[in-house]
C-alpha cells in the first residue's frame, strides 16, 4: 500500500471507522513504514491534546445576562405574538376578507334600494303615454344612471366655481345614500362640494330648497288628502291648497260620429312646507302617488348672504351699545336728540336684518313643495305601459350588477390608493430593522 493512501486512512483509523480489511492493511503498513508511523503518532498526539483541552467555566454574568434577554424576548413575543403568529394571521386575513365582502354587499344593496325608488319614476318620466316599453326601460335606465354621473360631475364642477345657485336636472333622486354620494363626490371631484343632494344641515350651509312637480292621479281628492296627511305627519304644514273642477268641452269619436261632450276635469294646486331633512323623501313619496308629468328641484344657497347679514346685525348691535354709552355722557338736550336719532336708525336696521334672518331660517328649515295634481281616468292611466313584475325584476337585477361592479371598483381604488402607503411603511420598517441589527452587531465588536 502506498504511503499516500495510508495517510488518508489514518484519520479514520484513529476514529475506529475502518473495516477489518483496511485496518489490518494499515497496521501492517505502519509496522513497516517509519514515516507513516511517525505521521500516525503525531496525529494521535495532536488529537489527544485537543481532547484534553479543559472546559472553561461560564462567566459569572452569563446566566443573569441571558435571563434578561430571555425576559425581554418574551415581552416582545407577547406584544407581537398575537398579531404575527401564523394561525392568527390566517384568521385575521379571513376576517378582513369577510368584512370587505360584507361592506361591498351593504354598499351595493343600499344603492340598489335607493335606485329602486328612482326606477319607478324614471320609467314614468318617459315621454308620452304608451310610449315606453319594458325592455327599452332598462337600457335607458342604465344610460340614465351613467349620465347622472356625468351630470353630477358637471354640477360639482359648476359648484366648484362657487355659484350659490345650484339647479338640478330631472331625476336627482339618484343616490340618496349619503355615504355613496360623498364617496363618488370625493372621487369625481377632489373637494366635497355641497350639491342639493347633500343635506344643508350636514354641510353647514343654508340652502332654501324648493320642489315643483306635476302629477296625474286617479283621484285628486284622495291624493290631496294623502299629501296633506303626509305633510302634517312629517312635521310640516300645507300652506296652500286649491282644488278646481273645470268643465271642458271635448271632441270625442263615439260610434263613428263626432260628438262634443262636456268633461269635468279636476285639478289641484298645493303648496307644502316640509322640514328640510324630510324634503326629499316626501317629494319622492308624492311622485309615486300617480304618474309624474314633470318635476324639478332646486336649492338656493344663501349661506353667504346669511352670514353677511348676521355679521351686519352683530356690528349694528355693537354700534347700538356704544351709542347707549355715549348717551350717558350726553350733556344737553341737543346731543341727546342727535344720539336718539342715530340709535333709532341703528335699531331699525337691526330689526330689518333680523327679520331677514328669521325669514331665511324659516325658509331653510322648511322646504317648499309646489304640487299640481290632475285627475286622470283610470283607463288613461292604465294605457301607459308599466313594466310588469318580470320587467321590474330584470331591471332590479341589472341594477344590482351595476352596483356590485361599482362597489368593487371603489374597493379596488381604495386598495390601490393604499399601496404607496404600505410600500413606504414596509420600506421604512425594513430599513429600520436592518439598521437596528447592524447597530446591535457593531456594538458587539
Amino acid at each position, binding site marked *: 500500500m502506498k504511503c499516500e493512501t495510508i495517510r488518508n486512512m489514518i484519520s479514520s483509523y484513529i476514529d475506529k471507522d475502518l473495516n477489518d480489511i483496511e485496518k489490518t492493511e494499515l497496521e501492517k503498513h505502519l509496522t513497516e513504514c517509519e514515516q507513516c508511523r511517525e505521521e500516525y503518532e503525531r496525529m494521535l498526539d495532536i488529537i489527544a491534546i485537543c481532547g484534553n483541552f479543559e472546559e472553561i467555566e461560564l462567566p459569572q454574568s*452569563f446566566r443573569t445576562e441571558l435571563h434578561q434577554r*430571555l425576559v425581554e424576548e418574551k415581552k416582545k413575543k407577547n406584544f407581537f405574538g398575537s398579531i404575527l403568529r401564523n394561525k392568527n394571521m390566517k384568521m385575521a386575513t379571513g376576517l378582513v376578507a369577510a368584512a370587505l365582502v360584507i361592506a361591498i354587499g351593504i354598499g351595493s344593496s343600499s344603492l340598489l334600494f335607493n335606485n329602486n325608488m328612482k326606477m319607478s319614476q324614471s320609467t314614468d318620466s318617459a315621454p308620452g303615454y304608451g310610449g315606453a316599453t319594458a325592455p327599452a326601460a332598462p337600457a335607458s335606465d342604465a344610460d340614465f344612471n351613467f349620465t347622472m354621473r356625468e351630470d353630477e360631475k358637471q354640477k360639482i364642477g359648476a359648484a366648484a366655481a362657487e355659484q350659490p345657485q345650484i339647479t338640478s336636472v330631472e331625476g336627482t333622486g339618484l343616490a340618496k345614500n349619503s355615504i355613496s354620494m360623498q364617496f363618488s363626490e370625493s372621487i369625481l371631484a377632489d373637494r366635497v362640494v355641497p350639491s342639493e343632494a347633500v343635506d344643508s344641515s350636514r354641510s353647514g350651509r343654508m340652502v332654501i330648497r324648493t320642489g315643483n312637480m306635476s302629477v296625474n292621479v286617479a283621484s285628486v281628492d284622495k291624493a290631496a288628502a294623502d299629501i296633506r296627511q303626509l305633510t302634517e305627519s312629517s312635521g310640516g304644514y300645507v300652506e296652500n291648497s286649491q282644488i278646481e273642477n273645470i268643465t271642458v268641452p271635448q271632441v270625442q269619436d263615439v260610434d263613428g260620429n263626432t260628438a262634443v261632450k262636456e268633461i269635468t276635469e279636476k285639478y289641484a294646486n298645493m303648496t307644502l312646507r316640509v322640514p328640510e331633512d324630510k324634503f326629499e323623501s316626501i317629494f319622492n313619496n308624492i311622485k309615486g302617488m300617480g304618474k309624474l308629468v314633470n318635476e324639478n328641484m332646486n336649492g338656493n344657497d344663501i349661506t353667504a348672504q346669511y352670514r353677511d347679514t348676521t355679521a351686519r346685525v352683530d356690528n349694528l348691535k355693537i354700534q347700538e351699545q356704544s351709542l347707549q354709552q355715549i348717551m350717558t355722557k350726553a350733556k344737553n338736550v341737543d346731543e341727546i336728540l342727535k344720539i336718539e336719532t342715530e340709535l333709532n336708525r341703528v335699531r331699525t336696521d337691526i330689526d330689518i336684518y333680523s327679520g331677514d334672518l328669521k325669514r331665511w331660517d324659516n325658509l331653510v328649515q322648511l322646504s317648499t313643495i309646489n304640487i299640481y295634481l290632475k285627475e286622470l281616468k283610470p283607463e288613461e292611466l292604465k294605457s301607459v305601459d308599466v313594466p310588469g313584475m318580470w320587467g321590474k325584476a330584470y331591471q332590479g337585477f341589472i341594477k344590482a350588477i351595476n352596483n356590485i361592479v361599482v362597489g368593487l371598483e371603489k374597493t379596488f381604488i381604495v386598495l390601490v390608493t393604499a399601496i404607496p402607503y404600505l410600500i413606504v411603511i414596509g420600506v421604512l420598517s425594513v430599513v429600520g430593522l436592518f439598521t437596528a441589527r447592524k447597530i446591535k452587531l457593531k456594538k458587539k465588536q
Partner: protein
Amino acid sequence: MVYICECILGDRFIEEVEGGNAVSDMEKLLVKKSQSGDVESFELLISSYDKRAYNIAYRVMGNEEDAKDMAQEALLRVFKSIKDFKGQSSFSTWLYRIVTNVCLDELRRRKNEKYVSMDSTIQTDSGELHMELCSDKETPEIVYERVEQRELIKRAISELNEDYKSVIVLRDIQGFSYEEISNMLDCSLGTVKSRINRARNMLREKLKSDMELSRENRV
C-alpha cells in the same frame, strides 16, 4: 437511583431511574413548557447544556468575549424557535447545532467585513485599530508561550477556515460522534468524515511549519 424532583413544575416526581429515562421525560416536559413561553422552564432546560455550548463557542470564536456573545445569542435563538423543535433529533444536538451555526455565521460575516475593511482602512487612522483586532492572536502572552504546544495547536485551529475549524472543535475537542456532527452541520456523513480527515491533515501541516519556526526562534 431514586430521583426526586420538585421544582417549578409544582409536582413531585419520584422515579426509579435506570439510565437517563427520567431525564428525558422531564426534558420533554420542560421543552413543552418552554414552547409555551415559560422562561424559567427554559433556563432549567438549558442548564445542562449551556456550559458546553459556551465552550463550543469559545473554541470556535477563539476568545471569551465573543464566546459569551455568541452563546447567549444562540441560546436566545433556541428560545425563540423552540416552537419549531419537533423532536426529530435530541434536544441537545439541536441546541448545539444552533450554537455552531451562530458562530460560523458570525465568522463568515467577519471574514467578509474584514476583507473589505482591511483594504479600505489602510490609509485611515482606524487602520491601525483594525490591525490590532486582526492580530489578537499575537498578544504578548501567546508570543511568550509560543513554545507551548497547546497554544500552538490552539493558534493553528484558529487559523483554520470555518468548515475545518468547526469539525475539529466538534470532533476532537468536544468529542461528538460523526452522526451528531452531521446533524449539527447539516451535511452528510461522508462529508463529515472527509472534512475531519482534511482538517486534521491541515492542522498537522500547520503545526509542522509552526514547530520549525519555533525551533528557529529558539536558536
